[in-house]
């Protein structure tokens, strides 16, 4: 027994030595503090399994703008999700490699950490499950995750970042999905004029903005509610229909007839920057959207009760429309879009 102990100690020493070696090159990769803005909802329950770290976010940002994600190396995530436009592209429908036109309008990327559903139809509940979709979709990047890894695995700058973010240089699909999600979680927009007025940081609404806020609360806030300016419900509000057979709105996922052509209520944050509007960019301007509500929307069996019970329209005077638009522009976060 006496002999065994020294022997064990030596073995343990050896083991701890090799551990120490690892730790010597282990990198300090602190979690980023999740600053939840006042009044925002709790983060999506999956965020706690993939908390953003300093290098995870940095890696995700680099991957986000890497064109090698597409089959012909022409399109990155940031080709359609352009920061200056609150991560949208200004086009009616997303455009992928070889000019292929996607099914829907590119959604903005902001405050995703707080969302329970992703995409127009809520097809994803967990952000880490989303990046694969554009990578493999024919009308987007038309590639595969192993093709992407094959292209970037000999890139020394990635080896360094994967090591910093995840402890070793291995590039795996899960690490790619996680780091992109971490980058997206870090994109929080809560510094608009509206926020500063609300937080009493010395700014105040103009008369028109204040009137617009009033109308907003009367006629819009039942759907565009909470500090996210969406209640995250799915509704058919009688917008012009996308006749592509791949489109069924929320029913595409649920198969439920009553969800047919229902779409997630979009956030109004940074709405000034995300034209055109609607699930496939039906409206070029905010004024066009408001005119449409005023003139009356399409009838449908499952038209949202708010429209069904109010003559299928939201009556608005021209002055009200102008004030509403003035208010919506107070939701622009100039620092967020770097304009």
């Amino acid at each position: 027994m006496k002999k065994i102990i020294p022997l064990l100690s030596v073995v343990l020493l050896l083991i701890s030595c090799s551990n120490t070696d690892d730790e010597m090159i282990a990198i300090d990769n602190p979690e980023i503090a999740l600053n939840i803005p006042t009044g925002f909802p709790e983060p999506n329950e999956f965020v706690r399994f993939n908390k953003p770290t300093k290098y995870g976010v940095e890696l995700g940002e680099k991957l986000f703008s890497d064109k090698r994600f597409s089959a012909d190396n022409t399109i990155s995530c940031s080709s359609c999700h352009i920061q200056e436009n609150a991560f949208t592209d200004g086009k009616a429908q997303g455009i992928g490699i070889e000019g292929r036109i996607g099914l829907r309008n590119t959604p903005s990327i902001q405050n995703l950490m707080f969302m329970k559903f992703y995409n127009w139809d809520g097809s994803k509940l967990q952000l880490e499950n989303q990046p694969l979709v554009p990578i493999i979709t024919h009308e987007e990047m038309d590639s595969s995750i192993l093709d992407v890894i094959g292209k970037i695995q000999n890139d020394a700058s990635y080896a360094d970042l994967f090591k910093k973010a995840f402890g070793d240089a291995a590039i795996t699909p899960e690490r790619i999905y996680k780091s992109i999600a971490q980058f997206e979680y870090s994109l929080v927009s809560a510094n608009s004029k509206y926020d500063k007025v609300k937080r009493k940081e010395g700014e105040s609404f103009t008369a028109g903005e204040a009137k617009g806020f009033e109308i907003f609360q009367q006629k819009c806030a039942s759907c565009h509610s909470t500090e996210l300016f969406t209640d995250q419900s799915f509704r058919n509000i009688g917008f012009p229909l996308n006749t592509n057979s791949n489109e069924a709105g929320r029913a595409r996922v649920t198969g439920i007839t009553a969800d047919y052509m229902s779409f997630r209520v979009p956030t109004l944050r940074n709405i000034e920057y995300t034209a055109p509007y609607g699930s496939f960019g039906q409206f070029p301007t905010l004024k066009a959207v408001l005119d449409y509500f005023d003139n009356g929307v399409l009838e449908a069996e499952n038209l949202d009760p708010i429209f069904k019970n109010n003559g299928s329209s939201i009556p608005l005077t021209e002055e009200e429309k102008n004030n509403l638009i003035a208010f919506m522009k107070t939701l622009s976060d100039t620092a967020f879009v770097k304009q």
Partner: protein
Amino acid sequence: MQNFKKYFIAATAAFAFVSCSNDDQNAVSNNLTLEFNNTFKNTTIVLGDAASASATANTSAAGQVHHFSELKYVISNIRLVKEDGSEVPYNVNDLDKGAAVIDQSKTASLSYVLTNVPSASYKLIKFGLGIKPEQNTLDQVRFPKFYAAAGANDTQMMWEWGSGYRFTKVEGFYDTDNKAMSIHTGSTVEGTAGAYTQGVNAYRDITLNLTTNAVVGSSAPKIKIKADFDKMLSGKINTITLSTGTGMNDNATPNVHTAAQMVKFVDNLGGNGTNDISGMFSVTAVEN
């Protein structure tokens, strides 16, 4: 003593016999082939484009004539059931080794050979039309072969937006003016057990009695399975009329590319899992 000798000889002979038959079966596993015959009723389907004169035409219960230009489906989760009721799973957790795309345009795909099937007498076969939710994730790392086969340009058995495989893909034409029809099925299930989940599970478990037992051992049997696509529109569960209305009840039924209106096709093809566990499938013969 004489008696003892007799018994001894008899016993030895019996042992020899047992070991003989053991030799044949015990050490041996063998192949078992599933041969799929895709039909309209009893006629094997010939594919063809809109104006094709050779394509097999079928008329639905609702009176709509139709024919197909493309016909594919995925089978997985194959299990064989022995005479005593015990189940022998065949690579059920490995899509690369245990799942296949059956493609009417590729003759080789119509015969799916199961290898190293343990020697036994089997009375029943079970398999899935489609892929169970837990495996339906387009995991290229885990199942590279099946991913490549399903994603090939001439196969296109993926629902990219749903991060899952297509389970059936039928392209064709209907009515006398040959309007295009396009029926795709697949699962849209999302979420984790215990938490919020959403979507439609389009996987269907099929159970088929064999006409006679398939005896795997010295021989490699063949099970002939008929997939009667007449059932797609004229099924045990639903009688479907294709119509191009835009209302939410008749939404795009000739063009099913989403979960909307999909389940009635799924149930006709693969049963509803309760009172219909065979859908369009039946076993027509077993060749031992």
